[in-house]
């Protein structure tokens, strides 16, 4: 599957660096600002992950929970998420977009309708946190038919056999969860060990773009730059929270942060 996600990885590779992926929650801290944040960070990020907020997130840590609750409180609905993507995609700052969230929201929206709207709004990929392999086979196939990448997740607990099957069924991007943690935990594993596991995935199929996420901050990002891509999420959400607490502009603060992140992996 070649879509704009693959292209983004390829151009980062040409520059000899990992792709930088940011994660923000749609509607955080307002619908307008989340669009502004996307536009601002797209100068530095290669791919933007955008969370559609759920109020019972079983895999998210405090930072993303706070962002999600803030977005829900602001009245962010799925149609707003699509609207934000549409506006982003029609701007000159456009970057590949991966929506990320929990399966119940897709289920209630209607799986086919959801994918049609993803397609219509030029969404490039999907991460569904609580739809693991092999349960996700059917849905992943539906995505493939629409040329939307379904991103498989792999964790340190994934067994060897499972690893092989998941990689076989994966599309053009795989997400390796760096450690046993919810999002935003403190990095409790050495970068060396994380990269060792990462290499295991690459050795099974080196053609799949594999990103590392969970616990990545300004401090740790450079030590992992041999990966195909690196995701920063909770650190950005925390920055939004901090800027609100300090009455600063979240758009500028986040933009500055992502710029710094980018500089560390060049």
């Amino acid at each position: 599957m070649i879509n704009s996600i693959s292209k983004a990885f390829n151009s980062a590779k040409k520059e000899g660096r990992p792709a930088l992926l940011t994660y923000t929650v749609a509607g955080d801290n307002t619908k307008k600002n989340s669009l502004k944040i996307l536009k601002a960070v797209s100068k530095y990020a290669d791919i933007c992950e955008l969370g559609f907020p759920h109020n019972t997130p079983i895999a998210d840590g405090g930072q993303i929970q706070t962002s999600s609750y803030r977005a829900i409180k602001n009245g962010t609905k799925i149609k707003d998420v699509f609207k934000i993507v549409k506006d982003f995609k029609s701007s000159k700052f456009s970057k590949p977009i991966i929506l990320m969230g929990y399966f119940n929201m897709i289920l209630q929206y209607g799986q086919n309708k959801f994918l049609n709207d993803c397609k219509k709004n030029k969404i490039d990929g999907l991460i569904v946190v609580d739809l693991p392999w092999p349960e996700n086979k059917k849905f992943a196939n539906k995505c493939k038919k629409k040329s939307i990448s379904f991103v498989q997740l792999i964790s340190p607990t994934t067994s060897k056999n499972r690893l092989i099957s998941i990689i076989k069924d994966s599309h053009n991007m795989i997400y390796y969860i760096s450690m046993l943690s919810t999002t935003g935990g403190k990095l409790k594993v050495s970068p060396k060990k994380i990269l060792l596991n990462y290499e295991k995935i690459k050795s099974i199929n080196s053609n799949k773009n594999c990103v590392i996420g969970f616990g990545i901050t300004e401090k740790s990002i450079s030590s992992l730059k041999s990966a195909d891509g690196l995701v920063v999420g909770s650190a950005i959400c925390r920055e939004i929270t901090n800027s609100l607490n300090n009455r600063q502009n979240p758009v500028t603060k986040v933009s500055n942060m992502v710029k710094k992140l980018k500089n560390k992996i060049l």
Partner: protein
Amino acid sequence: MKLKKKISVLDQHDKFGFWGGKFGGNFVPETLKKPINDLELLFNKLKNNKKFLSERDRYFKNWVGAPTRFIKLSNLTEHVGGAEIWSKVVSDANGGAHKIYNATVHCLLAKKSGKRIICGDTGAGYAGKMLSMAAKKFGLKCKIFMGAKDIERQQPNVKAIKSNGAEIVPVYSGSQTLVDAVSECMRFWVANCDTTAMCVGSTVGPNIFVKICGWSTSQISRELKIQILDEFGNIPKRLKLYNCVGGGSSSFGFWNEFMDYDKKQVEFIGVEAGGPSKSKKHAAPLTYGSKIGILHGAAQYVNQNSEGQIDETESISAGLDYPGVSPLHCFLKDTKRARYTAASDEDALKAFKIVSKYETIRPSLEPSHAFSVAISEAKKLSKDTVVVVNSCGDAYKDRKILEKKLGVRL
């Protein structure tokens, strides 16, 4: 959708863990796939192992205190004037509620797996209290997740958890009740599943947790069946089993052994929490026709909005204050094996007053919901009908609420 006979309902799911093709499953983050699979392998190996079963039975008998009483509520029967009203006094069990069965089994499994820490969620505080008791008994470190609102309203159980040496983690997110406690507990497990076992406090959560809990609480109906045969010589022609339903662990356990009887002979009535009669919020997804959604790793009927955000619930009873319900009960509802209805906060309080006025048992607010419906239906039933209510918890934990609402001092 059909219920099979001669095979435990617990085993009537497909290879993906769905009952009736659509309830249950394993909607979990990748990280939990392995620990869940490990637990499945361990449980499947042990559940028919004679040595393990006799170990379980020994703890149930000597430590939990099996069997709990099965008594006729003669005064209440006379007052109501209809069917015979009996109670299975499960609150006799060590710790004062049915939650001890699941907690004991989970601690036994944790020991076998070599884990040294066990974490669990709690609403009314009973699941937490029992897990802390069992953890202490089996020498495990214990961490209990509890909503801040529930910590406030269930103080006696909070004290008990602490005195058993367990750590209580207050949960401030969302509605600060059971739903948030379960989420936070699962998150903790995601981050610590290599060293820590998790006990889900009811027949909810990913498939294996539903099964282990239902398997454990089935002790209630195993005892009851023997007691009924002792008392009546056979299973009465008209037997009605009333039980409150929150997550659904006590009701499933109270019914399981009677599953294969025709419902005209043995009827199951599940009573959900209808919430305050003036409020639109409730904790009764089966009664009020909530849509199927995913909560805590399983597909089930759950209170939610059109976007799939889980609704806040409201009930005087912390143990029933949960927006979802066990996949097992969804299955029993859709196969029409069980009937579900709701009682309001006020109904439950009134039932508590009546039961404690005429009898020496004092059901907590959870079973008071079941008593409320049992009393009003028993009135209209023939004298040869046998009504049994599971008094699955003791009201001591509710004394603050009862004092405030009814002026009763326990």
